[in-house]
């Protein structure tokens, strides 16, 4: 063949291949092939929905892409950082007087420390810098920690964040004045109960006559009556709160005839969410409900994409053909346990997570929801050790009536922190909210019963955490001692 023909053939093949690849990228199919590397943490649940983070228009310059990308981090993590009273907020570094620091670690951008798709260098908390990153700014000038804190003279920079002393963002339980304020407290309070749990668990139960009254008033189709569900419901908080069968099975119906006509045998979770809004909202922020997160990009819209590519009025037929081709709604509607990256029991695979996974809809058995449901799936060391732990013994003692309500410590006590507002208890259904770094758990959870000192020591001992706190911490973190010393002997350490 002539050289010219070969050139034409080569160009045609290259263009054809590029067209096929971009058609796949922009309009169809499974896009995992375009992933530069595995995403980390909860991000893997929506990694095929690329547009959640990658919002820039094609061919934008690098600076704009970085800005757009970083905006999306804040979209989802803003509230969390605000609640943490972020020690290094972006706004602090935007001032041009911080320009000298931009060359060290550019703290105006999340991606300077948290770079996605780089599993080989990703540490806990999606950190993609070496663990001694504090050295970049806190080793010279006014910020030199060894000058400001003589107690820190012999310490190395890889221990700032790994020791249980400091976090980059969340120091709400670790700041100096807080340490001093809670110094010298006994490891266990005289009255070790978790206040919101006291309210939740002290709820009066319906007595036999009330249950009879509720049962007599049931309005439901004939064939749906007479099962165990009736009696379970009659003893539940739903019955006491005047939420009858129709409330969930026929939410828009009012009269018995309407209820029978509109009866839905297995109502979906949107029925639960219509009343339990706060729970549903927080559920979508954690790993169990992440696929419902309001900020995830919607599944791709072929019509919009064709318009973006310059086809202003695509025929209906082309659009519907493309919609059929898009076999993968991105992301998949529900997270299945089979996709989880944590240790789970083999028999727990292939399950979707909805409200009813943990909450039996009629029984409202909170002890199942707060422990049993978790242990049905989770099989990591910490979970497996729970039933042998002192925290679990307290649950048994509380159930036996030997300890007051609020004494028992379930999985949910620590992982689904509860808060009380005007007598109403709200359970945060984002079970990841206080998980990383684990010092986030100290104030809302640990300190209900334990001293700050004990909490810091215990959470810094990874083996103890794995054993579900059977035993005592194998280390003592000296942060409180040093903070107290600095206040008691100001001339020995303060800046005076």
């Amino acid at each position, binding site marked *: 063949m002539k050289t010219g023909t070969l050139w034409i053939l080569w160009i045609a093949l290259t263009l054809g291949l590029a067209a096929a690849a971009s058609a796949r990228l922009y309009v169809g199919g499974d896009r995992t092939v375009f992933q530069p590397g595995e995403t980390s943490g909860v991000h893997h649940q929506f990694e095929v929905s690329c547009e959640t983070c990658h919002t820039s228009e094609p061919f934008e310059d690098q600076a704009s892409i970085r800005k757009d990308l970083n905006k999306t981090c804040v979209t989802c993590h803003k509230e969390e950082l605000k609640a943490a009273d972020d020690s290094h907020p972006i706004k602090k570094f935007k*001032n041009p*007087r911080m*320009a000298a620091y931009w060359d060290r670690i550019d703290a105006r951008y999340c991606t300077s420390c948290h770079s996605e798709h780089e599993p080989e260098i990703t540490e806990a908390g999606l950190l993609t810098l070496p663990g001694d990153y504090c050295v970049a700014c806190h080793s010279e000038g006014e910020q030199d920690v060894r000058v400001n804190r003589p107690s820190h003279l012999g310490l190395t920079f890889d221990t700032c964040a790994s020791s249980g002393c400091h976090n980059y963002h969340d120091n709400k339980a670790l700041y100096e*004045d*807080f340490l001093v304020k809670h110094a010298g407290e006994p490891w266990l309070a005289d009255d070790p109960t978790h206040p919101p749990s006291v309210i939740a668990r002290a709820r009066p139960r319906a007595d036999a006559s009330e249950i009879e009254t509720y049962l007599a008033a049931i309005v439901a189709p004939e064939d749906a009556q007479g099962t165990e569900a009736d009696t379970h419901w009659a003893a539940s908080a739903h019955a006491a709160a005047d939420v009858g069968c129709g409330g969930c099975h026929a939410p828009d119906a009012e009269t018995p005839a309407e209820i029978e006509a509109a009866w839905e045998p297995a109502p979906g979770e949107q029925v639960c969410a219509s009343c339990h809004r706060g729970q549903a909202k927080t559920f979508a922020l954690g790993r169990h409900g992440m696929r419902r997160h309001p900020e995830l990009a919607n599944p791709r819209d072929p019509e919009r994409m064709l318009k973006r590519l310059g086809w202003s009025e695509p025929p209906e037929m082309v659009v519907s053909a493309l919609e059929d081709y898009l076999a993968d709604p991105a992301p998949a509607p529900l997270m299945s346990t089979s996709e989880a990256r944590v240790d789970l029991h083999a028999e727990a695979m292939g399950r979707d997570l909805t409200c009813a996974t943990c909450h039996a809809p009629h029984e409202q058995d909170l002890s199942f929801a707060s422990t049993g449901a978790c242990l049905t799936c989770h099989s990591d060391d910490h979970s497996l050790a729970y039933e042998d732990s002192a925290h679990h013994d307290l649950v048994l003692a509380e159930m036996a009536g030997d300890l007051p309500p609020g004494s028992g410590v379930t999985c949910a006590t620590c992982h689904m922190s509860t808060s009380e507002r005007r007598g109403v208890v709200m359970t945060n259904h984002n079970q990841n909210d206080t998980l990383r770094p684990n010092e986030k758990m100290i104030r809302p959870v640990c300190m209900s019963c334990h001293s700050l000192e004990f909490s810091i020591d215990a959470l810094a001992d990874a083996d103890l955490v794995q054993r579900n706190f059977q035993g005592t911490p194998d280390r003592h973190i000296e942060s409180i001692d040093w903070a107290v010393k600095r206040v008691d002997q100001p001339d020995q350490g303060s*800046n*005076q």
Partner: protein
Amino acid sequence: MMTPMAKVKALIVGAGVALGGSASADGMDYETVTDLLHLVMSSDRTVYTRMIVNRLAVEEGVIKASEHFEDDKALVLPAQMFRFGSEMVAEETDEFSYSLLSLWPINKQNAPTTPMEKEGLEYIAANPGENFYGEEELGGETYFTAVYPDIAVAEACWACHNDHKDTPRTDFKAGDVMGGVVIRIPM
């Protein structure tokens, strides 16, 4: 609808005309703009310090002012009040930025970080009643930088700064220059 920045500009121009500053249809020089910005900042700051913090925390003693105002259910410190405002501005615009700095800061973050900040703070401390103006290059951009003295206007200022465990200076008194407000405009 006016954007927040347009409102700020309108306010500045309005204030400039009222004061007889060098505002004109062609715009204002940098010095006039920073002078006017500072006038608003220092007035609000003095009002908060005297009428809220000093009155309630020092004179009437009905509430504390604390750095950990949420945990302590207390008033925001005047310096924090100023910083939160400046951070809110930073989130809205990069057309100007400002901060409250000192050669004797309780919080090390508020020590000078650029040579011009240091020069400016030293100048206003040595020349009471005078401001400092200059130009500096930061992160590849040239800025007009103005430094204004920040004066001890109420007992709350020197009482707290002299007694704080982290203060590098303990002899502040009424009328002293305790630090400076630095305002920058990219040129």
